[in-house]
């Protein structure tokens, strides 16, 4: 290391942000007398072009070897100034920042004291700057492929985009078909396109695209590695049907002894299927699956005189011996598109959901109005002589949204609009029906949404402002107990059908992915983006992106937009082919490491492992950092009992002098 460093100090005004509270002139004057400081300046905006030019010129003309910028948080502009140094031919890690904005001017009001504090911060940065070492950023190759977890519209769109750009895509979908919730919808607001018509072609494309390897009825078991180089392990569950042989003819399902006895999840349990099934006619892949929890052969080892499906299948695709298959592959990037679940309305017992068959949720109504649904699109509640065509219909909005009493403070963003859509569809099918929507606020924020709301009102959907409190039965009617808040009138409204506009919530199994990828969740439980505005598809883990409702409630337009955003982010990585890895990582001094493994436990990124080395003739266990995995968080360095792990740029010998001057200067 150069024994005589030449330091330049640059104090930023940040317009008035800093200069209003801190006497920047005094700070730069103070800095100019500090050891090794050759120049000290202050300037209105250090991050501006002329500001950066100042630094570059000084590096050249004054022969600076270290730079201290006293301005905002390094989170804001550390990268900017590192580039400035590099542009002037200096190692970018010869930069040290003193945060005199967030840590000083923004949080203090007394100018004298703030100025004194700014001086101390600058002094401590200078004390560290002279001890900085040059670092080089390593580049690693990016595996030219992507993993997409979840085959809803978000996953489908991202997969198609990445595949179209020429990269390999592995798509893992948990259920037997891609499509997600959108495949369960009848028509879609605000344009009322038929959901299947716009979705099915995309589902088929995913299955047939040469660059996409689709794995349905599969589960990601493990993802290890780091940006550009993830190792993925997927379990393909046994379908007990040979995918290569099955033609999707359906002869087996016709014959299954349990045909029409098992509630079909796809139809929200309103329709029934057999033990061998295709969840819906347009399912992709159009291959049958045997339900291992219900099939008589698989649960009891015996199905009558012999399994009828085997008999029925002309190509011999049924195979009860089939086992789960584990596949492993490498990808450069991962997109999480695992979607959402609907709020379970039985958590609000006052609405009688689960108790009254004519209290249903929005998704159930989607299946009832859909031509492909269990009633062929007829709106009938119940079966046989109990079947009833509703005349008086009430929607209740915000069930499980905006409601602290069930820990769901957020707005689910789609329920206002899907209620309007479903109300319209009911009127279309049952023109005699009286449909009202009980609401607290109508949120019609999207393109064409307010217009759609206008349309359904004029069609005769009656909007009553008031969120109902209770539903109970009186005779064969349901009583909706509410208040029309605009009229200030409490009312008991007798209806035949109540539709609960249930909100969207994080999937119950959201933890599976969290455990595998160490993602964080925001307060609402959805996966958290790196920044709510500027990095909405990124996560805290490099190379892992979010798309669709996995990140938060969304309609289809926003889901698709975000999916395309995630695909674009993934493609930046894939097409550049190389990725820089963090330089300020931890390093182990193997001569002093005692191999206690404490750091291995501490590291949140699994970047440290214990290895055996030969230390002067003796075999010893020591910790070793995987440079590609280390994020430079410093947790290990703070935890190491023998001081053997040090983080580059934050070594003890670098930060102790920094702390010392802070203490010395009162």
């Amino acid at each position, binding site marked *: 290391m150069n024994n005589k460093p030449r330091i330049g100090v640059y104090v930023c005004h940040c317009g008035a942000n800093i200069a209003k509270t801190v006497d920047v002139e005094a700070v730069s004057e103070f800095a100019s007398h500090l050891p090794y400081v050759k120049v000290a300046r202050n300037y209105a905006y250090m991050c501006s072009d002329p500001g950066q030019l100042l630094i570059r010129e000084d590096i050249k003309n004054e022969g600076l070897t270290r730079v201290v910028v006293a301005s905002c948080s390094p989170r804001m502009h550390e990268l900017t100034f590192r580039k400035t140094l590099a542009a002037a031919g200096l190692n970018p890690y010869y930069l040290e920042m003193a945060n005199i904005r967030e840590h000083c001017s923004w949080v203090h009001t007394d100018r004298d004291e703030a100025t004194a504090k700014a001086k101390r911060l600058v002094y401590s940065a200078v004390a560290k700057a002279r001890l900085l070492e040059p670092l080089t950023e390593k580049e690693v190759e990016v595996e030219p492929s992507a993993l997409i977890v979840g085959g809803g519209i978000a996953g489908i769109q991202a997969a198609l985009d990445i595949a179209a750009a020429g990269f390999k895509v592995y798509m893992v979908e948990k259920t037997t078909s891609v499509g997600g919730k959108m495949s369960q919808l009848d028509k879609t607001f605000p344009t009322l396109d038929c959901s299947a018509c716009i979705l099915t072609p995309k589902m088929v494309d995913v299955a047939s695209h040469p660059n996409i390897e689709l794995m349905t009825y599969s589960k990601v078991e493990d993802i290890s590695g780091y940006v550009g180089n993830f190792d993925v392990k997927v379990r393909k569950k046994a379908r007990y049907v040979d995918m290569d042989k099955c033609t999707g003819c359906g002869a087996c399902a016709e014959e299954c002894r349990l045909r029409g006895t098992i509630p079909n999840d796809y139809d929200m349990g309103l329709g029934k299927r057999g033990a061998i099934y295709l969840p819906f006619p347009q399912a992709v892949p159009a291959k049958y699956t045997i339900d291992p929890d219900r099939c008589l052969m698989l649960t009891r080892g015996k199905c009558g005189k012999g399994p009828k499906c085997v008999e029925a299948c002309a190509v011999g695709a049924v195979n009860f011996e089939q086992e789960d298959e584990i596949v492993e592959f490498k990808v450069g990037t991962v997109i999480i598109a695992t979607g959402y679940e609907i709020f379970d309305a039985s958590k609000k017992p006052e609405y009688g959901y689960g108790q009254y068959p004519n209290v249903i949720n929005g998704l159930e109504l989607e299946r009832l109005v859909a031509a492909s649904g269990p009633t062929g699109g007829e709106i009938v509640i119940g079966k046989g002589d109990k079947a009833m065509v509703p005349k008086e219909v009430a929607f209740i909005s*915000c069930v499980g949204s905006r409601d602290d*009493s069930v820990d769901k403070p957020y707005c689910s963003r789609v329920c206002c609009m899907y209620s309007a859509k479903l109300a319209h569809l009911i009127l279309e099918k049952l023109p005699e029906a009286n449909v009202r929507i009980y609401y607290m606020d109508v949120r019609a924020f999207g393109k064409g949404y307010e217009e759609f709301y206008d349309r359904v009102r004029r069609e005769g959907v009656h909007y009553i402002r*008031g969120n109902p409190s209770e539903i109970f*039965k009186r005779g064969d009617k349901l009583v909706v*107990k509410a*208040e029309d*808040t605009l009229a200030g009138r409490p009312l008991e409204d007798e209806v035949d059908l109540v539709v609960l506009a249930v909100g969207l919530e994080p999937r119950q199994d959201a933890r599976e992915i969290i455990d595998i990828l160490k993602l964080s969740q925001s307060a609402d439980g959805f996966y958290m983006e790196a920044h709510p505005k500027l990095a909405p598809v990124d996560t805290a883990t490099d190379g892992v992106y979010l798309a669709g409702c996995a990140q938060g409630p969304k309609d289809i337009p926003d889901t698709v937009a975000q999916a395309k955003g995630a695909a674009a982010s993934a493609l930046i990585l894939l097409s550049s082919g190389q990725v820089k890895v963090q330089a300020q990582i931890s390093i182990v001094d193997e001569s002093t490491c005692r191999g206690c493994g404490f750091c291995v436990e501490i590291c949140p990124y699994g970047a440290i492992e214990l290895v055996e080395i030969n230390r002067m003739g003796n075999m010893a266990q020591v910790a070793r950092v995987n440079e590609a995995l280390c994020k430079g968080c410093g947790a290990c360095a703070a935890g190491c009992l023998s001081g053997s792990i040090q983080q580059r740029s934050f070594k003890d010998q670098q930060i102790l002098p920094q702390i010392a001057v802070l203490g010395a200067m009162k």
Partner: protein
Amino acid sequence: MNTDANTVIESFIQKYDLLGCIQCGRCTGGCPVTIRTGLNPRRIVYDSRDEEMLEELSNLTEIWDCTTCNTCAVRCPKGLKPVDVLVGLRNMLVEEGVIQPTVRDALESIFREGNPWDKPRATRCDWMEGLDVRIVEPGEEVENLIFVCCTIAYDPKVQVIAQNFVKLLNKAGVDYGFIGEDESCCASEAHNMGEEGLFEMMIEDNTELLNSYAAKRLVTLSPHCYSTFKNQYPDLKAEVIHYSHLLKELLEEKKIAFGKECSDKVIYHDPCYLGKQNDVYDEPRYVLKQIKGAEILEFERSRERSLCCEGGGGKMWVEGTETKEERLAETRVKDAREQGATVLAVACPFCVLTLDDALKAKGFEEEMRVADVLEFLGPFIE
């Protein structure tokens, strides 16, 4: 503007988090009395945000319609408690000394005699006559300290609740003790009628008294005492339970059993102070189910949707703006009869009184009777 008044008003808004309200109307929609009175809790919450209106609001007769059933608070999506706003307004009135005579009598009686019924303290234990009751002294160790409730202690219609309980406790060999004449009102109704000062005083006195026993649990016979001790007495040392908790425990441990066959069809009415306010739904049902032969029915509106009987919230002493519409207690007995019940079982002395009145008003005495769970199971104790 007077700054003092300003801080008071500010604290009214803050105290009840009035700015959190989104005017959704769930409170009014859920409020059981809105269909037969002029009360609209949502409007009261809305209007209370205007400091100038508070006085006017506190003079509205409808603020006395509230039964403090708590439905509004349970249903509010934003965590407000409209019921507390109403009680807060009542409190403003009481502080100004505007009190209905019946209310004043009740409050004075609590203050002087420790009960709202204008009865002398000396007769609080008259119900014990002929019974072998264990009374404990302060300092004495006792596992279950029993709190009787003023209504049960004095009203001959419901004294049987306590009497049967004693028999049960003796039979089961439970380590218990009653407080005796020193027992004083939990003051729940003083609070509900807006007498916050008296309520606070009673909290202090009662806490001192109750903590002076080395008791593990405080077993209450009325859900009103139960809820008040549990939720509004911050410094009680003993765990507060309702008698149905203890009965369930004794039945499970087989310390008590029910003998004789029963041929009744029993429908259970959830008291607001037990159910909605404290989520105790299963224990009383469990107890009833142990009675051999009893057919247990359910109201259409049960558990979280149970209909208030209008017995609480000071309604024993005040009139509000009730209209001629059917009383809720009458709706309740009608519903019970429609279900074919022969016994309308409850676990609350107020419910017994209001429902029994309604039963008589409807002339259903022949077909059906109202009984507290403890009263009903009396004959079946082995």
